[in-house]
Structure formats: C-alpha cells, structure tokens
C-alpha cells in the first residue's frame, strides 16, 4: 500500500492499487486461459493450423453429441426442481426452529458442502449399490425379490446430485426467509387467508430472489458435477463434463474438448442471464 497518500474517508480510496495483484492473476490465469479455450475451439486440429467452425459443426451436427448436451441440461433441470421441492420445506423448518438450534442446524446443512465430492459420491455408490441400504431394506421388506439396479441409472444420478447440491439451494432460501417481515404472514392470516394461499401469494413471491439464487447455483453445479455423474452414472450415460475430459486427456483431441467446454460454459451463462433477468423482474437481484 502506498504510504505516501492518505485514505480519504472510509473507502480506502488510495487502496485501489491493492486490487491489481488479483486482477493481474485473474487476467493471466482465468481470462487468458478462457480466451485460449475459445480460440482453440475455433481450430480444427491440435496443431492449431486450420481455423474455422468445423469442430462446432461437428458437435452440433452429430446426434450423439446433441444427446449428451441434452442429457446434461435435462439433468440440471431435474436436479434443480428436486432441490426446490425439498429445499424450501427444509429452509422453512429452519426458520421455525428455536434460535439456539439454528446455528448447529445450519452447520449440519453446510457439512455436505465442505466434504469432498468424492466422499459424497462414494456414499451414494454405497447406498445405491446391490448390497447397499436401499436394496437391503427393500429385500427385507419383501417388496422385491432381487436387488434393483439403482446405480448407473439417470434416476440414481438425479437423486444423488439433488442431495449433494441441496445445501446450495437451502442456504439462500434461509437467508431470504429470515429477512422476510414476519408480520406479513400474520397479516395475511388475520385477513382471513388460509396457510396455502398465504404461502403461494405472500411467502413464495417474496422469496423469489433467494429461490433464483439457489436455482442458479444448483443448476451450474449439477451440470458440472463431473465426479458424481461419472461414478454414479457409470458408462451408461454420457454427460458433458466427462465427455470433455475424455476428449482432452484420453483422446487428446483438444479442439473438440474445447468446443464441449465452451458450449457448457455458454449454457451455464445463458441460464445465469435468464435467472438474473427473472430476478430483476421479481424485484430482487440474483447473485451467488
């Protein structure tokens, strides 16, 4: 920090140069690589001699590729919806809990976020496996005769991802629900409205900013959830992240891998813009 100039007011005006290190780092290690990624995707071969949209055409023209993209986006959507349906009640319950319990409860909700995705995915492999708890319970209850194939199905992936991403939905919802004026709900009841009407006409619309923030985080994470998609999905379903890895490392086809990466990024960004626009309409700004 330059000691020669005094900060004017509480805004650290002269501290602006402090942002340069991170800014530079960002340009070199995030912006440049991303640009490079886009650049590489516009070439036809690893040596980067032939420029053109050939790789994009190759991707978008092939039915298999489009299916991969479609599966990935569809997975993101399913997981987002699942987390909304389960996350809202959980967040709601948190706000109803006594104050002393809210801190520990929050930490329990956060715990999955801080544990490795490999650990979390491994847990689901253990649960959905032939000898896992689900199959054991169903067998014991006599509901099935043979263990079900739950691993390596898209349903299994959806459920596993829904659990793994659930905290990302619950946290913004808790934030927005606690900031709601409790008198609003009580006013609605006092005016004669029932609990369902109060929820759909008062609570839900006013929780939109949190809901959209959560949806954004969940969608972005779910479509990029490389580890879970691969370990729980197995080879049965191909998703964009693994496709990208396979093409880059196993097949050595960097331009194509770059195309996959760029398309994935573009989809995530499109959803971000869309949800932000929705958020602005509903009166709140959506941000991570």
């Amino acid at each position: 920090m330059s000691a020669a100039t005094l900060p004017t007011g509480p805004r650290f005006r002269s501290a602006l140069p402090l942002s340069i290190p991170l800014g530079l780092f960002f340009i070199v290690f995030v912006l440049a690589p991303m640009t490079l990624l886009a650049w590489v995707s516009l070439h036809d071969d690893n040596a980067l001699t032939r420029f053109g949209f050939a790789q994009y055409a190759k991707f978008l023209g092939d039915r298999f590729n489009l299916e991969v993209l479609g599966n990935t986006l569809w997975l993101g959507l399913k997981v987002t919806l699942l987390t909304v349906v389960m996350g809202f009640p959980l967040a709601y319950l948190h706000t109803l809990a006594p104050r002393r319990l809210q801190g520990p409860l929050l930490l329990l909700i956060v715990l999955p976020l801080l544990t490795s995705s490999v650990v979390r995915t491994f847990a689901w492999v253990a649960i959905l496996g032939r000898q896992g708890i689900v199959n054991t319970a169903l067998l014991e209850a006599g509901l099935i005769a043979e263990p079900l194939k739950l691993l390596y199905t898209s349903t299994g992936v959806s459920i596993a991802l829904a659990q793994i991403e659930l905290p990302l939905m619950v946290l913004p919802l808790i934030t927005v629900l606690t900031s709601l004026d409790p008198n609003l709900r009580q006013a609605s009841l006092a005016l004669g409205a029932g609990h369902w009407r109060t929820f759909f006409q008062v609570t839900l619309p006013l929780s939109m900013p949190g809901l959209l923030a959560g949806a954004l985080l969940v969608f972005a994470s779910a479509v990029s959830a490389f580890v879970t998609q691969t370990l729980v999905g197995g080879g049965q379903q191909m998703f964009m992240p693994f496709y990208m890895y396979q093409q880059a490392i196993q097949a050595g086809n960097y331009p194509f891998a770059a195309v996959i990466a760029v398309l994935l990024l573009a989809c995530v960004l499109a959803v971000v813009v869309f949800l932000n626009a929705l958020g602005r309409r509903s009166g709140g700004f959506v941000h991570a």
Partner: protein
Amino acid sequence: MPDVFVSGQPAAAAPAGRGESWRGGLERRSFAGVFGLLGLVAAVLLLAPTVVVLITSFTSGYSLKFPPPGYSTRWYSALWNESPELIEAFVLSLELAAVATAASVVLAVAAALALARRREAWARTFEAVLLSPLMLPSLAIGLSLLMLFNLAGTGLSFWTLVMGHVAITTPYILRTTSASLLQMDGALLESARSLGAGPVHIFRTVTLPLISRGILAGAFIGFMYSFDNVAVSLFLSDARSEVLPIRMWHIIESSLDVRAAAVSGVLIAATLVLMVVMERVAGISRQFR
C-alpha cells in the same frame, strides 16, 4: 351495558364457543403435513449418506454391504499401516491446499480492501468478474489452464497445480472478506484518522481485527474446497503426484475398496471437527446466512 371491571374479578360463565372450522383445520394440517414431511425427507436425505459412510467404514467385511456383517476398525488400521500411497496423497493435498489458500488470502484480501466498499459501477463489475469462477464449471477452468501451460511450454508441476487452485479459491475469500468490510462501521476509520493514525497503522489495528473473522471463514471454506477439488486437479496433476480425492476415485472405480470408506470417515470427522472449531473461533455459520 355491563359495568366495566378491573383485573382479578372473574366474569360470569359463558358458552364454550365455536372451534376451528373443519375446512380450516384440514387446510392448516395439510400445509403442516406436506411441509413437515418434505422437510423431514430433505433432512434425512441430507444426512443419510454421511451417516451410512461412517457406519460402513467400521465394517468387518470386505464389501460395502449395508448393514455391515460386523464391526471393526480394521479398515482404519489398514489405512494407517498399509496404504502409503493414500497417506502420500493426503499429505500432498494438504500441502497444496495450504499453499493455495495462503496465496489466495493475500490476493483476495488486498482486492477486497480495494473494492468492497466502493459503489461505482465499474467497481461492482470488477468484483463480480473476480467472483465469477464461483459459477463457472471448474472443469473448464482446469482444461483451459492445461492448454495454457502446454502452450507456454511450462509443462505440469506442483506449482501449476497451485495456480489452478488459487484461481478457484480466491473467490471464496474475496466474498467473505468483502462481506466483512461492508459490515464495518466507516465511522471507526474516520475516528482513527482524525486521531492522527496513518493508513498502515489503521489497517493493522482497526481494519484487520474487525475483518479477521471474515478472512478466516473464507480461508477455511477455500481450504476445504481446494482439498476436495477434483476437476482442476484432474487436468493439472502430473503422473507423479496425485491428490487424495483423485486417488480415492481410482480406488472406488477400480476395486471398490472399503479403504475408501475409511478415508471418507477420516475426512468427514476432520471436517466436522474443523467446522466446530471454526464456528467457535470465527462464527462461520453467520457467513452462510
């Protein structure tokens, strides 16, 4: 009109009165029921995997059968005694996370000091851009960095891995430190200035203590994120050094070794302990609100 009266004197007995209408009761109960059930399912779903893994790690058998046929700590001792490659990977992950987090703290805190309290549009945009890796798939970041290093001819090493991890952890620290700075009362800085303190002195004695919790919380989250990260590590590791999550993944994919459960057990326990410590020291639950 009956006479007005004051506390302590009971009124004459009156009829018992109407209760809740059956429709209203049904409505209320259905709402509570649906929300309660979904919430409970969500809570169980949230915690079950962690619990299952912990229980499975104590199995005496050789597979991931649940419930386990018996209990023993053999897999933990197998981990401790017979798995040098896992311990090596653990140490590497630890070093990597520590170095990356330290570098990130320096970069991110500096940037936060510069940008957090500014209202101008360009500052807001700049900060949003610096926070963008939070939302971008880290896989893409990993791949793009791989291309960069290949192009630059530097090849892969521990340090290229560190660069990748710094890129993905700085946003967390930036976010929490900015939040702390925003909550700081500007009047404190103005008082310090009016008392004649210089900028470095003010930073050391006023600002830093006040934002230390935010920095610590961000560093903790960043550290855990780096330790657990697979996507970036996948692209930027060289063959010699593998981080723990990737080594675990190999185990799970190939042999479904129960040692993976033991590793998970250790990691979960460590995370829990660290989380509780962080909560007492830095009150991190507030950062998540």
